[in-house]
């Protein structure tokens, strides 16, 4: 392929980047045609983000070259990337919450008057111009923190366009969006391509990749393992390439055989960390042998809900009943003893002590039980080791040894430690909050299977997840939470559109 005539917007050749202990990119070749939507897919840690950071100048490759529009480009920093017309919409927004939309968009290329005065009027004009050109409406004077996530992302896109980007990199752009917002985003992307922009779309959500992209590059463990044309491929083929083996995309489960109600939440209220009401009267029942999914856009009270149920947050009102026993005011330890297990959403902060060994992490919360301690005082190390070896094997935790610090394990294996610990306690109720967040497909598959197995053994499972696909494939019933209230409880096969609508506060005929 010779440059200049190929019609490639981006050509990256032989990109290699070594981080301490990880070869993040191993002679990666990556090309994007001008005017296409090109998906870059791969598991966490496959090297997608590193590759894009190289392209955007945030990371310097050890070797390899980059051509932009057929011409060799040296990209030493974000500033160079911007000069070459490359813009990046980061997974974690690069927005300043206390600044206005206008200030965020202008930052780095601010309009000034006089010696150095920031010109608000011209900032407004610029944004109005971009809005007209691309149809992306925004209020320049709104404070960023006050905008919903979808609009924040729009501001990110406008920011990139304001810098004159022709090549837009979007890193996991739908991760934080509701299905409706994702649809809107796709509309925006298609519009941008029509105006001549080139888009690189990083994702691990295969359905979206198939929907939006023209071509696909698949990465695994730092290498490119496949180039695909979207219309000639399938979800299964991409997944197999990503993981390197056949994977089960759909969760294989028998219909639930729910038993009696074992866990009851009645009119529960609680406040968030900032002291504002986060739960405004949540009620539901959970039966033995069923998975109840809690669907909702993040920040609608689901975090607070699981924390209250797990005993790490105080309820301000309402009741929680476990087999007709009031456990509302129980703390984490007594909840645990009562038979409530908890997979917290913050794996590294709440679920594990990262500097502890795998073995120690596997008994966290049970260190006082007679099995692991003599009179709650002296640890029984032999029993702990044996227990750890058993769980490591049973839950396929990939670790050099049970003495390895949890910090050194991959995200998926860290999560398996928590899952193993919580499930092995034979709980009556299992609270699973974002159980597969940031975990690779192989581990997701495993955790999903174990959740279903747990259900089949009669545990009552409460599943909270921001991934609607996960909720829909696992849950027997789905409760939709919106602004601290359960707005509806739907059957497990409720259509995605309906759930999406409910999650954003629509679709309910004001039934109070």
């Amino acid at each position, binding site marked *: 392929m010779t440059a200049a005539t190929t019609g490639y917007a981006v050509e990256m050749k032989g990109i290699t980047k070594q981080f301490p202990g990880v070869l993040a990119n191993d002679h990666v070749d990556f090309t994007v045609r001008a005017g296409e939507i090109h998906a870059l897919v791969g598991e966490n840690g496959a090297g997608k983000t590193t590759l894009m*950071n190289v392209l*955007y100048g*945030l*990371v310097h490759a050890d070797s390899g070259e980059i051509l932009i529009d057929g011409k060799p480009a040296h990209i030493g*920093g*974000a*500033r160079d990337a*911007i000069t070459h017309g490359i813009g*990046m919409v*980061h*997974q*974690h*927004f*690069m*927005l*300043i*919450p*206390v*600044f206005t939309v206008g*200030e*965020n968009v202008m*930052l*780095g*290329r*601010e309009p*000034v008057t006089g*010696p*150095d*005065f*920031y010109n608000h009027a011209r900032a407004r004009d610029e944004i109005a111009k971009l809005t007209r050109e691309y149809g992306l409406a925004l209020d320049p004077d709104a404070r960023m923190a006050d905008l919903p996530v979808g609009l924040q992302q729009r501001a990110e896109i406008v*920011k990139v366009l304001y810098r004159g980007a022709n090549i837009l990199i979007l890193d996991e752009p739908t991760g934080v969006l509701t299905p409706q917002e994702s649809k809107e985003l796709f509309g925006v992307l298609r519009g941008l391509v029509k105006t001549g922009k080139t888009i690189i779309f990083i994702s691990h959500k295969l359905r979206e990749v198939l929907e939006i992209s023209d071509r696909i590059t698949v990465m695994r463990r730092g290498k490119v393992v496949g180039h695909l044309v979207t219309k000639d491929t399938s979800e299964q083929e991409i997944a197999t390439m990503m993981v390197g083996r056949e994977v089960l995309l759909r969760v294989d489960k028998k219909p639930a055989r729910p038993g009696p109600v074992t866990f009851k939440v009645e009119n529960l209220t609680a406040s968030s960390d900032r002291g504002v009401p986060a739960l405004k009267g949540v009620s539901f029942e959970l039966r033995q042998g069923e998975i109840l999914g809690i669907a909702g856009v993040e920040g609608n009270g689901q975090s607070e809900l699981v924390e209250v149920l797990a005993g790490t947050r105080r309820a301000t009102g309402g009741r929680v009943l476990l087999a007709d026993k009031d456990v509302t005011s129980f703390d984490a330890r007594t909840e645990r003893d009562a038979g409530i297990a908890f997979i917290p959403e913050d794996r590294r902060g709440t679920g594990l002590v990262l500097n502890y060994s795998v073995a120690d992490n596997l008994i966290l919360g049970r260190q006082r039980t007679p099995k692991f301690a003599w009179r709650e005082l002296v640890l029984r190390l032999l029993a702990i080791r044996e227990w750890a070896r058993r769980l490591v094997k049973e839950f396929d935790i990939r670790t050099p040894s049970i003495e390895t610090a949890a910090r050194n394990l991959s995200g998926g294996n860290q999560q398996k430690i928590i899952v193993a610990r919580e499930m092995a306690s034979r709980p009556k109720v299992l609270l699973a909050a974002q159980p597969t967040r940031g975990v690779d497909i192989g581990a997701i598959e495993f955790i999903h299977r174990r959740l279903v197995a747990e259900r089949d053994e009669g545990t009552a499972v409460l599943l909270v997840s921001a991934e609607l696909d996960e909720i829909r494939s696992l849950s027997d019933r789905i409760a939709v939470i919106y602004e601290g209230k359960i707005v509806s409880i739907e059957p497990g096969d409720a259509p995605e559109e309906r759930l999406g609508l409910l999650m954003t506060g629509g679709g309910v005929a004001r039934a109070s």
Partner: protein
Amino acid sequence: MTGINEILHLLVTANLWQAALAAAVLLLLPALGGVISERSGVVNIAMEGMMLTGAFFAVVADLAWHNPWLATLVAMVAGGLMALIHAVVAIRFRADQIVSGIAINIFAAGLTLFLVNRIYGIQDVGHISPAEALPIFDVPGLDQIPFIGQVFFKQNVIVYVALALLVLVHIVLFRTRLGLRIRAVGEHPQAADTAGINVYAIRYGAVVTSGVLSGLAGAMLAIGVSNTFVPNMTDGRGYIALAAMIFGKWTPAGAFVACLIFGLGEAIYANNSIIHISAYLLSMLPYILTLIVLAGIVGRSSPPAADGIPYVPGSE
């Protein structure tokens, strides 16, 4: 009860307010420095050490060259260099900024004491002559206004400079492109970096500026007020300035209000000969007020989001 009455009586005298403003300015300069540094995301508790360094070198330079203006410049450079050490340690080597700040303060105290002994022997440093001190400047005409004239227009030249700097820092931080960038770097350095802003340059500049301002305050203290150098003569002013910065919610105007309150307290206990409240009790006032503010009793005061967090490029 007599104590209260005496204070009330004192509060209506121009002398007291004149002294309060002068005392406040000694706090305002390092506080402004702190605001700039922390707005850029570098925690700075080293104003005490920078101010002390400035005070020492102001005296040394003034005794050597008999020129208070040159001496003031030397003090500012000395404060700036001290800040540069903090900047390198905190920004380049990503060390804990509190620890670095403490180290600077201890280092400054030791260094000045050592140099006093080396240069002047263990005896007194010696006083600079009043003619070589930073002068009091009476603004012609305005100083004749009753009360106001004495409070605002019969002050040390540095007081006017500091008040001008107060306005300037406010404008720069909140009205200019540079200020927008400083605040961006302090709130979200990754965002600033990806927007093409040089995070390190902004932070170095901000930290060094805080040292220059602290050094200026040191000069005023040593060759404007005391006319000599005494070991540890800053007497915790850098820390009170830090408290004022927090009390003022990281804004120049807020810090100034806090400095005025603290300065007033200081002026009252300097006049302690006529009132009967323990000087020790009064000198606790700034710290008590700071604790009250930090506890969130007088509204919430939260620092810039990235304050104290070293920036690692490419990190999330």
